């Protein structure tokens, strides 16, 4: 019935301009009459439904309210109409869309971006210069039934002239696991480190720390399973293990049925008084990488070299977060301190290709990095942030096969894994304004010394807008 009305309405709307031109007043009257009669029928049906609803409600009231002990309600306060009714008044599933865009300026060419000593993979590059639409995220989540809950995040972003659709996460959480056990399966971000599980819109800066860029290709997510457990203690203690296929950086192409990537983590957390709260974690990621692709180091005017790694990669992360809010009320002022330390050991083969040349290197390296940041909300809606990043690589590389490269130095340089003693570092300052929980405008400056010789002054003006269901106040 209502569908017919909508159809009639839509066709009427479409017809209106032509009707005006055609001066067919009679037709208008006829349609009007028809709509009128439809509306009457519709209203009658509505009244009928209302009456039935009222009856049902009064029946429910008799059944659910006023057990013998209930007090007699005062006349001016009617009894609840929705007693025990658990119907959520929101959409099912909960939907939200997050719009993000920015204006970026760099003093160096973002195409040349490199972190000497580190293979850049995943989404480790810089956003394009000028006006860009970063990622538009569509998030849907709901309980599937009494046993499962599901969530998916679909990101749309531009790659050249085309809009790419990326399924960032699509996972299922079992709801009924006993004794503090939790699980997840599908595609999801690993819970290693502190920042890894957060989507870009929840970051406190416009970009990830350099360590995430270098060690995890921005952040590590893959297809797999997780089992976690929370201890029944006053202090928060959680242990987790994840198994991933190994199709994304820092892995390459998945080879084994049960996956190439294993993670383990331990998280601790608690409150200190009413005003302080903390969380600390230790994580390990064991990767058996097969043909892990990444950009090499380009020489001016030459074809972009590529380096592909196969071998073992073991990463350890220690993280700590400390939050302060006066009396535990973050609305007016609050401070968040956060730091993570990364250590990685890698060994295996690297295939370097540049133009027609394709050489093979033996690679054994250790890398470390850390960052520390502070974000301070000094008045409601306004936050200031400061961050420092540091990375260092100590890689041994020897040529197994020159494969067309002029000499060993040439092949090693093209791999990008030779840091030449340069330790990338970066200072970042951020100011953001969030008029509500759903919108944020941010200005950020990076003094980026990733490259060996040149300091890049990076400026970003960014917006983040969230529509739809209420987001979570994650710690």
């Amino acid at each position: 019935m209502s569908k017919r009305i909508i159809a009639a309405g839509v066709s009427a709307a479409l017809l209106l301009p032509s009707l005006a031109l055609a001066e067919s007043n009679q037709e208008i009257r006829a349609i009007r009459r028809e709509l009128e009669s439809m509306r009457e029928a519709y209203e009658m049906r509505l009244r009928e439904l209302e009456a039935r609803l009222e009856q049902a409600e009064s029946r429910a009231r008799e059944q659910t309210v006023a057990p013998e002990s209930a007090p007699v309600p005062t006349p001016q306060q009617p009894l609840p109409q929705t007693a025990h009714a658990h119907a959520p008044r929101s959409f099912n599933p909960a939907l939200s869309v997050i719009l993000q865009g920015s204006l970026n300026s760099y003093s160096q060419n973002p195409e040349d971006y490199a972190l000497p000593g580190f293979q850049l993979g995943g989404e480790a590059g810089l956003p394009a210069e000028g006006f860009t639409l970063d990622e538009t995220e569509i998030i849907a989540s709901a309980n599937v039934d009494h046993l499962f809950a599901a969530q998916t995040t679909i990101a749309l972003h531009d790659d050249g002239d085309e809009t790419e659709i990326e399924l960032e996460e699509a996972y299922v959480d079992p709801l009924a696991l006993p004794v503090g056990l939790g699980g997840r399966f599908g595609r999801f971000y690993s819970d290693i480190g502190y920042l890894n599980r957060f989507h870009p819109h929840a970051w406190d800066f416009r970009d990830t720390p350099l360590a995430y860029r270098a060690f995890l290709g921005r952040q590590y997510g893959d297809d797999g399973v997780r089992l976690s457990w929370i201890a029944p203690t006053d202090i928060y203690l959680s242990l987790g293990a994840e198994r991933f296929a190994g199709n994304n950086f820092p892995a390459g192409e998945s080879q084994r049925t049960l996956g190439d990537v294993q993670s383990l983590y331990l998280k601790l957390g608690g409150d200190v008084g009413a005003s302080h709260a903390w969380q600390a974690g230790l994580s390990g990621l064991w990767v058996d990488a097969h043909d892990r692709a990444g950009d090499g180091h380009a020489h001016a005017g030459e074809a972009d070299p590529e380096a592909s790694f196969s071998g073992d990669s073991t990463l350890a992360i220690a993280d700590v977060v400390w939050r302060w809010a006066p009396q535990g009320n973050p609305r007016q002022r609050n401070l968040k301190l956060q730091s993570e330390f990364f250590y990685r050991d890698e060994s295996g083969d690297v295939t370097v290709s540049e133009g027609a040349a394709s050489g093979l290197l033996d690679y054994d390296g250790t890398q470390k990095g850390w960052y520390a940041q502070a974000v301070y909300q000094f008045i409601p809606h306004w936050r200031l942030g400061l961050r420092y990043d540091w990375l260092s690589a100590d890689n041994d590389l020897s040529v197994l096969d020159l494969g067309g490269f002029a000499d060993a130095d040439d092949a090693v340089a093209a791999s990008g894994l030779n840091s030449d003693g340069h330790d990338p570092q970066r200072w970042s300052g951020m100011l953001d304004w969030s008029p509500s929980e759903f919108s944020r405008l941010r200005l950020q400056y990076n003094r980026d010394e990733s490259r060996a010789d040149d300091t890049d002054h990076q400026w970003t003006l960014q917006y983040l807008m969230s529509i739809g269901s209420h987001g979570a106040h994650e710690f």
Partner: protein
Amino acid sequence: MGRRIAALLVCLAAWLPVDSNANLEVFACEPEWAALVEEIGAQRVEVFSATTAQQDVHHIQARPGLIARVRRADLVVCTGAELEAGWLPVLLRRAGNPAVQPGTSGYFEAADHVTMLEKPASLDRAEGDVHARGNPHIHLDPRNIEHVASALGDRLAALDPAHATSYRAALADFERRWQAARARWEQQAQPLRGMPVVVHHPSWVYLNQWLGLRQVTSLEPKPGVAPTARQLAEILNLLHATPARVVIRTPYQDPRPSAWLHERAGLPVLELPFTVGGSQQASDLFGLFDSTIALLLEVQQ
């Protein structure tokens, strides 16, 4: 290495929580519900309040310490109606406790048991912090406390059937004391009927309805949106035409807008306890209403 740790994980998982002396562990989102559970559960329950009167319940973070508490809870008691929308779902999702998920008997929403006021006709975020089911600050009408107490008593009895009679007896005792107190408050508050007030945030609609206070305006132009200087100046103009007796706010709300109004309009500012723990006198539910009414009567005279 990985296998050894996995084995350790399984061993730890089998390590079940140690029983405490209390029969039920209750996680209350707000101090008023913690106090109510204590009235009915007495020594049979161990209650943890996730928030204090100094905190704005809309803006709590899902801290690890809270996740650990939900993990152990037998019952979660919250206001509901989206008041805790930003953090409670995260706690429930991450705590790994199937016994307290929405829809189970271990999950209790107070808003299910009262008549909600200020149900929005339409939902639009441009209108500020509106809640689809209505204004969630339901606890400042003692009649609502009665409705919730009765449902909560049933719930505790159902969760711990061995002691059902003692919960029911405690409930009956609480109801008797509460009804006597309410009659006294209503008597005392007679002079407050019709008193014009300015509020910081619509936190007081249920108190207004019960005592017949007349809300002239709210300092926040829209719920949850801080007023600008110009909007405060407009309120000052409004107050020339429709004078109010007092500005009321909670302990956690920004004192500056009401202080501004106090300076310009000479309007007294009253920080009411708002919930249990909001002032020294408000150490329990009875004290909360005793001191709220006493403070209002002071400015009325």
